[in-house]
């Protein structure tokens, strides 16, 4: 069985994330129009389209090099806050990636999560990306600790991310543009948590059948 995370698998993951974001670009932007500055879908779509082009052109040899290239491309091309946030996620994940097995994948995702938390100075409950990423990492770690196969563990992570995304609806935003709205941000699903759930969903789809 292939390693969970070789360069090809990482590229497939990023490509699937890009496909999902492109497909839901307008929905993401609409969510951002309600509580932000109405650019999340278009910014992230532009960044991920550029990232896929960069990967196609350079074909980095290692999974860490794939993630690092995605990071620098997002940092350069997204424009909004999701650029440095997702850029930091991929940069820290690349830096933490040691080997290509299931434990290395879980550790890399956890390092990416910690990077987003420190970059955004946010915590779960603040109505951000972390509300999807944090329960996803917890679910992945728990499933792997129980010895469940990677497929099932990533599916559990994707489901946890989706629940976390849904749980942002009643929250009052404490970070980013939405925090300017205060109590008026409640009742809207967070766009960052929504795209972060797509990132985990993409991993579950792209890495199925590995490790």
């Amino acid at each position, binding site marked *: 069985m292939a390693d969970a995370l070789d360069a090809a698998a990482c590229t497939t993951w990023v490509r699937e994330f890009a496909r999902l974001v492109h497909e839901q670009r307008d929905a993401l932007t609409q969510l951002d129009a309600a509580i932000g500055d109405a650019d999340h879908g278009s910014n992230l779509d532009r960044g991920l389209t550029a990232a896929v082009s960069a990967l196609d052109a350079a074909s980095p040899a290692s999974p860490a090099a794939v993630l690092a290239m995605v990071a620098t491309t997002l940092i*350069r*091309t997204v424009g909004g806050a999701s*650029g*440095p946030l997702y850029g930091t996620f991929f940069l820290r994940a690349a830096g933490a990636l040691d080997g290509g097995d299931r434990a290395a994948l879980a550790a890399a995702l956890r390092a990416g999560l910690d990077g987003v938390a420190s970059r955004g100075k946010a915590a779960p409950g603040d109505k951000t990306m972390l509300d999807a990423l944090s329960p996803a990492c917890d679910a992945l770690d728990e499933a792997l600790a129980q010895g469940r196969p990677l497929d099932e563990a990533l599916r559990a992570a994707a489901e946890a991310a989706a629940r976390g995304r849904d749980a942002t609806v009643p929250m009052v935003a404490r970070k980013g543009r939405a925090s300017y709205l205060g109590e008026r941000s409640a009742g809207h699903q967070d766009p960052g948590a929504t795209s972060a759930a797509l990132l985990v969903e993409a991993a579950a789809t792209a890495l199925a059948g590995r490790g």
Partner: protein
Amino acid sequence: MPVGLVVVSHSRALADAAVELARGMLPGRDLAVEVAAGDIDGGLGTDATAIAEAMTAADSGDGVVVLMDLGSAVLSAETALDLLDDDARARVVLSPAPFVEGLVGAVVTAAAGASRAQVAAEALRGSAPKQAHLSGGPADGTG
């Protein structure tokens, strides 16, 4: 060499105008003020790689003070620090000062040859004259 300044904004027009306003305080004197503003297509946004390049360009050895507008400008400036080597990063101060007032204070202080810490402190004090002027009067917004 004086401390360099970097101006980070979502908008190239906003950054250029703020720099023009601040440079008005320096007739006949030059100062390294680098702008990193707008996204890669010239729209509203910030780019951490461009900010890192501006930090490098503005640093002539005595370091850099960075003024930012809001939101992703702050996150991108912090991310830019990750892209510098340790020595260069140690010479950069990200200022929490208000964008326009802070820049004016920083430009004047930097051109006078002050240290990085002094420039950053003066930037942070930038809105004090406005607050002093408007406080206590009938139109201070608190009554």
